[in-house]
């Protein structure tokens, strides 16, 4: 076990306190009854599903957001962080966050001036766990679909 001790650090990187906190107590969890937009996200390979609800005002600002579904700590924390992030943003800047998060999780460097990941940086621990990256991206793909009002579920494939 000692030889593997440094590796355990990677696990801690993945399951940071912030992630565990959001996984245990997801923010904005539940259906949004007066949502203007909604979309489902499906990970066809593991079967995880969640729904993202948005209330988008006429001026394009997301005034409220929530999510529903069951999933692993990573997908729930990611969805919870997402709702915290997008409330108050315009749909355009929410979409920039989608780009930035997907790029960061894919290990790509995006122009850092573009978007401040802030708390969302906590999701980056997943990069060392390639089989879990899709868990972290699921909510963001659903957000993208909700803003574009897609009728088809968004998928991680």
């Amino acid at each position, binding site marked *: 076990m000692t*030889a*593997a001790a440094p*590796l*355990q650090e*990677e*696990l*801690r990187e*993945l*399951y940071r306190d912030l992630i*565990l906190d959001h996984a*245990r107590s997801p923010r904005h969890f539940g259906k949004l009854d007066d949502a203007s937009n909604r979309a489902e996200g499906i990970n066809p390979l*593991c*079967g*995880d599903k969640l729904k993202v609800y948005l209330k988008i005002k006429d001026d394009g600002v997301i005034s409220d957001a929530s999510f529903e579904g*069951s*999933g*692993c*700590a*990573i997908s*729930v924390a990611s969805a919870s962080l997402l709702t915290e992030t997008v409330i108050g943003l315009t749909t355009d800047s929410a979409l920039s966050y989608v780009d930035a998060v997907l790029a960061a999780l894919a290990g790509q460097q995006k122009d850092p001036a573009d978007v401040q990941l802030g708390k969302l940086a906590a999701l980056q621990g997943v990069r060392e*766990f390639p*089989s*879990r990256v899709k*868990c972290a991206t699921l909510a963001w793909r659903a957000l993208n679909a909700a803003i574009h009002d897609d009728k088809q579920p968004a998928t991680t494939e």
Partner: protein
Amino acid sequence: MNEHSQKLAKPVTSGLRDCRSDFPALDQEVNGHSLVYLDSAASSQPPSAVISAVAEYQAHDHANVHRGVHTLSHRATEAYEGARDRAQSFINANTRNEIIFTRGTTEAVNLVAQSFSRPTLKPGDRILITHMEHHSNIVPWQQVCEQTGAELVVAPIDGKGQLKTDELIAQLDERVRMLAIAHVSNALGSINPLREIISNARRFDIPVLVDGAQAVPHMPVDVQELDCDFYALSGHKMFGPTGIGILYGKEAKLDAMPPWQGGGDMILEVSFAGTTYNELPYKFEAGTPNISGAIGLGAAIGYLESIGMALIERHESEILAYMMAELDKIDGIRLIGTADKKASVQSFLLDDIHPHDLGTILDHKGVAIRTGHHCAMPVMEHFSIPGTARASLALYNNRDDVDRLTEALLVAKKIFKK
């Protein structure tokens, strides 16, 4: 090898420990730890004997089978048909014509649903399955019910994940035109009492298909003793290659069935006026078959026979008992599937940790388990859970593997402790 062996400490008593070195995949490090492979119910690791049988065939003897007069084609045909003979004797089929090579269990079930059931089913007829079936033994029947207007009926299971056999038997009547049932459940490990069930089905002349995917790697199987009409299995779950499996069918049943897929090898004569189909088993093997896959499966059977299925069964049931006992000691564990008769598999949940998170943490400790619904969503729905973590055993596992599993689970508990 006596009744007390479970009470002794770690040494494995069955004499199977040495066989680990036959499996090259087990001799590797994963994430800095020696691999503990507890995912054989999803797919087993092939022994060197299988890997080299496939490679040797490909390097020296490959050609298309049947119809060939040249040496390689003759060798390939002998090897391919020799694998059929081995399979026949392994499950004790009555004739080699009863062994149809398929891609796996799934294709075997589809073949029976489409060729045997579809042409004869009508509204009012029933297909009876159980609540513990794998999707591969559910969806083909849903499809054929939709195509014919027949009804899918489901026999219930109890809180231990056992079939309610009495209720299933009460569901048997003239309307039931197929009973499709797992030998062993892949999500729960429950072994179904097939002989009792099949003898009851006989009273109403109900054809019985057994999904044997999770049974053949773990216990002796004798299709004539079971008296089932069809038996389906997958090579990759019994230490053979992927892409190969077997549909066993009683010759009289297979003979009466129309072919399913059309193409080369399954015909005797083709003209635009009409086509004469080939005899068994070729009638159901359209196109060039998975020759190297069949040869690899034959080698896997040879390997299993060299050890002996009875010995394997004894070894595994000992390790399974140990695993269940050790898991049960962990605070916050919930065992899913605690039938009285079980093989190979233990599903579980730990605290409120999502199975995927458990899977990731265990993998980080070199312990490979499967997490999710295990293609048995109705089982998950029965227990009102989205999925489980599942550790499954094969002949190469031992008590050390179990200890590594429980150690890793304690790490997961620590990470997720509030």
